[in-house]
């Protein structure tokens, strides 16, 4: 049908289609077979051009951008993971060092305390010994003094007793009996 249609009005083809478009009573445009050849040719040209543009330029370009972004994201994620690992390691090292320092500080403080305690103990002992010695010396002095004092007391008491007896009796008593009497009295 297309050929007979086209053939019948072959020479003034442009005029034919224009006239057809003008009064458009000729039928349903999508089924107008006289327009098929034109449409097929322009479709072929347009679609081949589109296919070439798409396959040669457009898809590699957009695909490249997407791939570059994907690579960038993966690279950044790997970098972030690396940095995180590094910071974790640093944190661990820091904690280890902190623990070591803490135990070292503990050791030093223990040692110092022990040393100071020992020193204090030694000083205390020395002082105590000194004081004990002084106390002993003082006690000795006291004992000596007391003995001396006591012997003096006996003499004085004997003198006083003989004097008292002389005054009362007018007789000078015998020194020996006075001494005996004083001794007895001191003992009693």
């Amino acid at each position, binding site marked *: 049908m*297309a*050929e007979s249609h*086209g*053939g019948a009005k*072959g020479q003034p*083809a*442009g005029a034919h*289609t*224009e006239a057809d*478009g003008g009064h*458009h009573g000729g039928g*349903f*445009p*999508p*089924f*107008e077979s*006289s*327009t*098929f*050849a*034109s*449409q*097929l*040719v*322009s*479709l*072929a*040209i*347009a*679609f081949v*051009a*589109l*296919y070439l*543009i*798409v*396959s040669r*330029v*457009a*898809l590699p*370009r*957009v*695909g490249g*951008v*997407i791939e*570059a*972004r994907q690579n*960038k994201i993966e690279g950044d994620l790997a970098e972030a993971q690396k940095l995180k690992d590094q910071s974790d390691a640093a944190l661990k090292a820091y904690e280890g060092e902190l623990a070591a320092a803490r135990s070292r500080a503990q050791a030093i403080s223990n040692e110092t305390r022990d040393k100071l305690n020992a020193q204090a103990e030694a000083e205390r002992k020395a002082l105590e010994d000194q004081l004990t010695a002084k106390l002993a010396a003082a006690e000795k002095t006291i004992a000596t003094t007391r003995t001396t004092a006591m012997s003096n007391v006996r003499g004085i008491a004997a003198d006083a007793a003989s004097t008292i007896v002389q005054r009362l009796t007018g007789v000078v008593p015998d020194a020996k009996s006075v001494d005996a009497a004083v001794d007895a009295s001191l003992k009693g």
Partner: protein
Amino acid sequence: MKIDPIHQFNIEPLFTIGHIGNHTIAFTNSSLYMLVAVAVITLLMLTSGKQLVPGRLQSVAELSYEFVASTIRSTAGAEGMKFFPLIFSLFMFICVSNLVGIIPYAFTVSSHIIVTAALALLVFVTVLIYGVAKNGLKFFKLFVPSGVPGYILPLVMFIEILSFFLRPVSHSVRLFANMLAGHIALKVFAGFVAMLGVSLGAVGWIGGVMPLALTVALTALELLVAFLQAYVFAILTCIYLNDAIHPGH
């Protein structure tokens, strides 16, 4: 005022390119809109930025790339990516010409059966040639489903072969009919608005609100259909190509 919903599908020759046999090859309004579609796709894909963080235009380009790529991968597998440029070209060409066609006074390339039939036949021939080239005679196992009892096998084979050769028909008519019907419906409802306004005066202006609202709603629906039909065409292409790549069902 007469509503003429068919006028929008007229092919108007703009100038004559040459002759093939008895046929006059003219540069028509359809040719113009085909080139418009190619130009829009080219601009979209080539002038969008190459930024790490995409802008709006670049997002559209990358979304269409990844949309088509994931459609192919999910229906035809990784081997189907050989046909990525073809399917991308088909999808974008149909989608853009459908969308451009919604603009008032624009011509819809895909509302002509010859265009959709040519695209469907392109897919059909590609499937046939690639299927035979890759699988040899095993490709025709496609028509012999496994696990069918012998006595109904001839019938099943007949149906399989028939459905295989009817594929380009349904493939092309689906797109063509959807675009045609949508544009006719839009034109009819839009025509009501003008007709009511002209013939009934003030009452008609008020009465025209209803068809106007319907026209707006239909335009939204047509936007959806424009995209959806392009997607359907592309996914059917993927499914048909999958038959050529893996004919063993």
